[in-house]
C-alpha cells in the first residue's frame, strides 16, 4: 500500500531540495537560490514603550506619549505598540534567582509583567482604538490596523520555558527589547523604535555616570565588541540586527521629551540609531 524510497514512506512529487538531507547540512544551503523574503507588513512601525524607563514613571511620562501616538495614528501612521516590564520584572528575576530557578522558568515568570503593562496601555488607549494582541492573535494584525486600532502587545517573545540558558549568568537574554525587535524583523516593518527615558545610547549608563556622552550613530557589531559594559538595548538585538534580512537599524528616542515619538514615527532622525555594519547579500 505505502510506497517507500530508501526505506521511507514516499509520495511521488514530494521531492525537493531538502529531501533526505539533515537540516544541519551546510553544503545544502550553498545550492539554494538567493532571495530576500517578502515583507509581511512593510508599512507598519513597531514601537516599544520602556517598562522601567516609561511605565514605572506613571502618568507624567505615559500620558504625553499616548497623546503623540494617537496623533500619529490620526495622521495615518500605522504602528504596533509593544511594552516592557520594568521594576516588577526585575523583582521577579531577583526572587527567582534567589530560589534557584533556571533561565526558562525566570523567562516564564518575567513574561507576566509586560502583559500587565500592555493591559494598562490598552485601557488608557481603548477610546482611541487600543486593542490587546496576544501572540496567537498576530495573524489578525491586518484587521486591527485596517480598522484603525492601536494593537498593543507584550514586548516579551513567546519563548518562556524554552528560553535558552545564556553563556553567562542565568537571566533570560531575550526580553522585551528582543521580542519587539524580532516582531519588527518578522513583519519586515518600516522600522523599530524604542521609547526610553534617555536621549539615546550613551558611552555609559547616564543615570550612574554623569560623564557619559550621547552616541548619535552606532554600529551594532562594534558595540558588541568594544562597547560599554552596560547598554540601552539587549545584546541579542545587536546580534540579530547583523543577521537580519529587513530591519537592519533601530532607533532609540527619549519619550520624556515632547515631540520625539511623533518625529521618529514621521521618519525624522531623532535620538540614537544603531545599524548593522555591512548589509549582507543573503
Amino acid at each position, binding site marked *: 500500500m*505505502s510506497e517507500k524510497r530508501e*526505506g*521511507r*514512506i514516499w509520495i511521488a512529487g*514530494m521531492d*525537493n531540495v*531538502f529531501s*533526505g538531507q*539533515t*537540516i*544541519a547540512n*551546510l553544503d*545544502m*544551503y550553498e545550492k*539554494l537560490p538567493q532571495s*530576500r*523574503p*517578502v515583507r*509581511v507588513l512593510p508599512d507598519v512601525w513597531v514601537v516599544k514603550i520602556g517598562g522601567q524607563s516609561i511605565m514605572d*514613571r506613571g502618568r507624567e*511620562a505615559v500620558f504625553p506619549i499616548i497623546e503623540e501616538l494617537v496623533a500619529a495614528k490620526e495622521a495615518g501612521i500605522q504602528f504596533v505598540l509593544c511594552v516592557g516590564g*520594568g*521594576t*516588577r520584572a*526585575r*523583582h521577579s528575576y*531577583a526572587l527567582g*534567582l534567589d530560589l534557584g*530557578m*533556571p533561565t*526558562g522558568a525566570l523567562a516564564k515568570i518575567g513574561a507576566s509583567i509586560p502583559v500587565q503593562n500592555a493591559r494598562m496601555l490598552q485601557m488608557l488607549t481603548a477610546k482611541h482604538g487600543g486593542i490587546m494582541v496576544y*501572540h496567537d492573535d*498576530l495573524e489578525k494584525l491586518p484587521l486591527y490596523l485596517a480598522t484603525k486600532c492601536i494593537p498593543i502587545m507584550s514586548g516579551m*517573545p*513567546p*519563548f*518562556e*520555558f*524554552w528560553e535558552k*540558558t545564556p*553563556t*553567562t*549568568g*542565568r537571566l533570560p537574554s*531575550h526580553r522585551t527589547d528582543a521580542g519587539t525587535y*524580532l516582531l519588527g*524583523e*518578522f513583519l519586515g516593518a518600516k522600522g523599530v523604535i524604542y521609547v526610553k527615558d534617555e536621549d539615546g545610547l550613551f558611552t555609559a*549608563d547616564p*543615570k550612574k555616570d554623569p560623564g557619559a556622552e550621547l552616541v548619535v550613530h552606532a554600529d551594532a557589531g562594534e558595540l558588541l565588541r568594544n562597547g560599554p*559594559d*552596560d547598554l*540601552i538595548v*539587549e*545584546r541579542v538585538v545587536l546580534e*540579530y540586527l547583523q*543577521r537580519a*534580512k*529587513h530591519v537592519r537599524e533601530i532607533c532609540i528616542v527619549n519619550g520624556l521629551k515632547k515631540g520625539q515619538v511623533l518625529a521618529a514615527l514621521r521618519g525624522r532622525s531623532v535620538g540614537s540609531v544603531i545599524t548593522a555594519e555591512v548589509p549582507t547579500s*543573503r
Partner: protein
Amino acid sequence: MSSDLISGDGRVHVKSGLMRESLVSKALNEATEGGPIRRMVPDVNFIAIGGQSIMDRGAEAVLPLVDTIVSLRKHHKFIIGVGGGARVRHTYAIGMDLGLPIGGLARVMGAIEEQNRDILVFLLAPHGGITFIKDHLQDLPMWLDGGMIPVCIGQPPYHFFEPPPLNGRLPENGTDVGLFLMAELIGAKRIVYVKDVDGLYTADPDVDHQAHLIPNITAQELIDRNLPDLPFDRELLRCVERSRLLGGFHLVNGLKSESLQQVFDGKKTGSVVRASAERNFS
C-alpha cells in the same frame, strides 16, 4: 525579601538586587552565574524520535521502538518528543520559494510535528500515551506519577519570533533544540536522540570507508571541527555548552531495537555529546 517601594528618580522601583539595572550589563550578568539550580521534574528521561530518520519509515521502524518504550516504561519515566521529517522539508522548500520570512517558516513547520505527535499518541494510548502541549508543562508531575507517557512536539514555541539563524537559512531552533531546552528546564535525568545512525561518525560511513564512530566527544570539539553535516541541529551543540543541569545527550540507532534498552542498562552504545566545561553548581 523586602518589598519596599523606592522613588526619587521619577520612577517607582520595587527594591530588589536588580533594582535600577538595565539587566544588560555584562558584570551584572556574571554576578548571576553562581548558585544552585533546582530540578523541576527530576528522574524523567526524554526520548527524541527523529522525523525523517524514524517516523517516515513507518511501521517497520516505529512499532518496534514503541514496544521498547512501553517495556522500559515499567522501570523508567519518559517524555517522548518527535520531529517532522519529509513533510517539514517539503514545507520549507515551498515556504522558502514563496519568500516566507524565517519566523513564518518556523510558524508553519510545527503542524507537521503535531501530526507525528498525534500518530505516536495513537500508538501509545493503550499504554498511557497522552498529548502533551506546551501549556501543560506544569502538569507533567501528575501525568508521570499516573504512569502516563506524555508525547510532545520538539520545536520550541518561538514561532513568528524565531531569530535569524547564525548558519544556513532555516530556523535553527528545531526539534532537537526544543527538546533539549525542555529537558534542561525541568532538570531531566537524560535525553536520548533516537535516529537511524549508529551514532556520530567522522564522515558519512556510506561514502567514506575510513569513517569511524565517535563514542564520546564534547560539543565544543564538534563546533570547532565544523563538520559539513551532522545528524542533529547545529544549534543543539551551543545549547549543550551552556547547559547547567543536563550536560549532554545520547544519540542511538532506533532501527536496532536493543540500542535504547542498552542506554538504560548502562551499556555503551551510540554516541555521547557532552559539555566541555562543568557549569553545574548544584
